[in-house]
């Protein structure tokens, strides 16, 4: 029956691996078009399962974002057996096709508001496009009325300053940064007390379950932040609007507000995998209306300038001078809290 449907329907949808099931008979079917979404995330030869059945093939993806995941041991073993470098295995079929067939780069994005779109365009797509256009309007007016620093589309909060700087701390195989967690909680508390909280709640829809996304670069940071947020009494109205996850779990998702916790703040300026461009690209390009980057400026201010976050920091810093209403660098180690009484 399934085979019958595959052979007779106008539109057949499935995952790359799922379509390979023998009983579907994909290999014996001929489609006018095969369209593969997120094709840059397909592992080696996975694309072949689907494209073997198409007269014409359209691959949609972005090889500047996260590549497919390979187990380290598998990668090592495959490279050894094939006698090629690990790097050449990591280059995706999509990227090869894109480069040899001179693929087309779309020049308009509809997810991010202009300041966020410009940041992503400048830092990650400058080689291919003069500028990535933004095909959507400005954020709703109430965003501008939010308390500082929420009233600015792109903000970098410097977590590497002040008396309570703790910097990164090793935790298991990763790192945590308590100072960044406190900063994020302070920011969220400001939002929870804002008179515009109602608007934020109204942004929640069936398809957009979470209005605020918090992306952390390390799992340990995600777990600690999740715990701290759970303990916050003020967080009641925001709790169901927030999703916390690591960058690797975030590709393909988007939220009106994104807070990015960079975590790394080491004396010797070691960035770890923050040097990875696709990872940074994905984490920044999830934001639609507001992007708050929480990270230690000193990590990318005078060092690591040529690395992805170095470029991001430089761009935000320059724009903060000429486009003050769109970009800001906040040089404090916390947001102010209440006095007692």
């Amino acid at each position, binding site marked *: 029956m399934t085979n019958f449907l595959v052979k007779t329907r106008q539109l057949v949808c499935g995952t790359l691996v799922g379509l390979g099931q023998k009983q579907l008979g994909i290999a014996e079917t001929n489609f006018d078009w095969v369209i593969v979404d997120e094709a840059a995330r397909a592992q080696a030869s996975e694309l072949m399962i689907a494209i073997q059945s198409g007269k014409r093939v359209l691959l949609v993806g972005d090889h500047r974002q996260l590549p497919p995941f390979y187990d380290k041991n598998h990668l090592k073993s495959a490279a050894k057996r094939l006698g090629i470098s690990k790097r050449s295995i990591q280059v995706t079929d999509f990227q090869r096709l894109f480069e040899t067939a001179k693929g087309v780069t779309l020049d308009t994005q509809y997810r991010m508001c202009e300041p966020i779109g410009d940041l992503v365009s400048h830092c990650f797509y400058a080689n291919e496009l003069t500028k990535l256009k933004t095909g959507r309007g400005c954020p709703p007016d109430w965003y501008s009325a939010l308390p500082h620093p929420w009233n600015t589309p792109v903000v970098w909060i410097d977590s590497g300053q002040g008396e*309570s700087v703790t910097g990164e701390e090793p935790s298991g195989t990763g790192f945590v940064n308590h100072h960044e967690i406190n900063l994020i909680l302070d920011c969220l508390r400001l939002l*929870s007390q804002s008179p515009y909280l109602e608007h934020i709640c109204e942004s929640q829809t069936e398809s957009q379950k979470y209005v605020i996304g918090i992306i952390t670069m390390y799992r340990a940071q995600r777990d600690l932040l999740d715990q701290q947020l759970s*303990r916050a009494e*003020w967080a009641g109205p925001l709790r169901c609007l927030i999703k916390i996850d690591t960058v690797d779990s975030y590709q393909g998702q988007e939220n009106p507000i994104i807070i990015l916790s960079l975590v790394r703040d080491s004396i010797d300026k070691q960035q770890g995998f923050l040097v990875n461009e696709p990872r940074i690209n994905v984490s920044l390009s999830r934001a639609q209306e507001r992007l708050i980057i929480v990270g230690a400026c000193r990590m990318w201010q005078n060092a690591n300038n040529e690395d992805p976050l170095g470029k991001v920091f430089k761009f935000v810093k320059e724009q903060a001078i000429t486009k003050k209403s769109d970009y800001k660098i906040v040089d404090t180690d*916390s947001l*102010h809290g209440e*006095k*007692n*009484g």
Partner: protein
Amino acid sequence: MDNLNIDLDPRQETRRTANVISLMLPARMYEFECSWTTEQPLPAMEEFSCRLLLMLGGIHPNELQNYFGLNNQEREVLLNSLFEKRLAVINTDGSIKPSSLLQAKSVNGTNLVPSLTVFEERQEKAQFDLLSLQLLLKNNYSGTKWGLPEIEADSALMKASQDQICEAFSRQYRAHLENTRASLHEAQKTRLYKIGQCQQQHTLQVPIDMVIELEPIRDHEVRIIRDVSQKVGEVRKFSLSNELEAKIADYLGKLKVSDEGMSIEKFCELFGDEVLARYVSENRFDLSAWLLDRDRKKTGYGNQNTRALLGPVYLKNNRIEIERWLKSFLAGSEDKKVGRIYWLPADVPLWAASGSDLTEFIAKIDDVLKKSDNSHEGLVTLFPTENNDDNFNHRKKSFSQRLPHGVALYNASSLDRVELMVFQGVFAIAQYHLQPNKTSGITIPIGFMTSDPDRMDRIEKVLKDRLKNVSNYNVMWSRDKKKLDDLLDFEYLQIAKTNHNHQQPQKSLPLITYRNKANL
């Protein structure tokens, strides 16, 4: 660059315990019929036989017999056991070799000899909270839990299906094992194989103690650290899940603290607290600066007769200090006796919300008092009450099992954030409940205890002033069925001794038993 109006000051961070609050979590007991598999080591001789088989690849039964020095019967028993456990197989030439099972299990090296997997069916009882379905430990709570604040159960989880509960148990069975098995080793070697059946049993309330710590992070700002965990033995802690923590946080967030009554500024003025007054500006108290100065020993009152007090009186350190002062007073002479002890509460939602610490405070103070005066009635709590007061029964329910005596005083001044405790003729305590975070019902009492005659006089004066309009009174409850004359010194309190058989509100008081929590 923009600034967020924070004055940064490179001061040392310090953290202090400022309160311990007990709460009751709604829970239900469930009984599960579980199948477990437990890995147990093989008997030594079988284990060594396996090692030999793996090492040599094969061995004749007689060689095995000689190796262990067995007689024929013992050899046969050993061989049969190895065959029954499918660890060895016999060759056509009569020798034995490792079975495929033994080879598979020792694939990571001959040192890893297989263990014996024992299958066991047994009934397990486990309690889950009715807020997030987290497994709660059966702990021996040391304090009195009656009347502690209760968090309302989630109505959907009250009707949780068997599948939901089985899923929750299978997700958390490791914690159950760690809490119920004799050793951690045994718990680690045991695995849940199957849940046959799950039966819903009675609902109950599980008390937890919540430690509140304060950490000054800069001028004017203080971070509140809340640790809710159940203790497992002396060392290990069983942390609550984030979901349950969030439910507790939401409960605390909904508690309202009234701003009515005396301000902190007025408190300092009225009680002559020149130390706290230094930290008050525009009617706000800079708790952060006070904590930092306290760490530098700069919050003293200049002599030993008065000392600062952070947190409720029953907090361990405060209780020890109060005990010490009492003992020191009584040590002077055998004839010395402590007068009555009055406690005037504060009107904050979590006042005296303590199980273990409050119980210990009452007991320890009683111990000290009874050593010099066996008939001493102990602590008397005074509750200003109005006619037809809805709070009357609520207060009685909340405190009658945790405080020895409660007296209702009609037409006394309303309670506010000020809390007083007077040890008549010995020393007195005045505290003000700060609310460090406006979005939380948690308050932190701060103030001083004093035996300085002038300061004591001020505290006593405020106490008497608040009671000056009292027209009627009655005993709400009394541990030893004491009478009003035993509990109140009318002359000292300057209360007119009339109408002292005031009718109590007629609302029926529900009998507090754990059994009737089942109707949660």
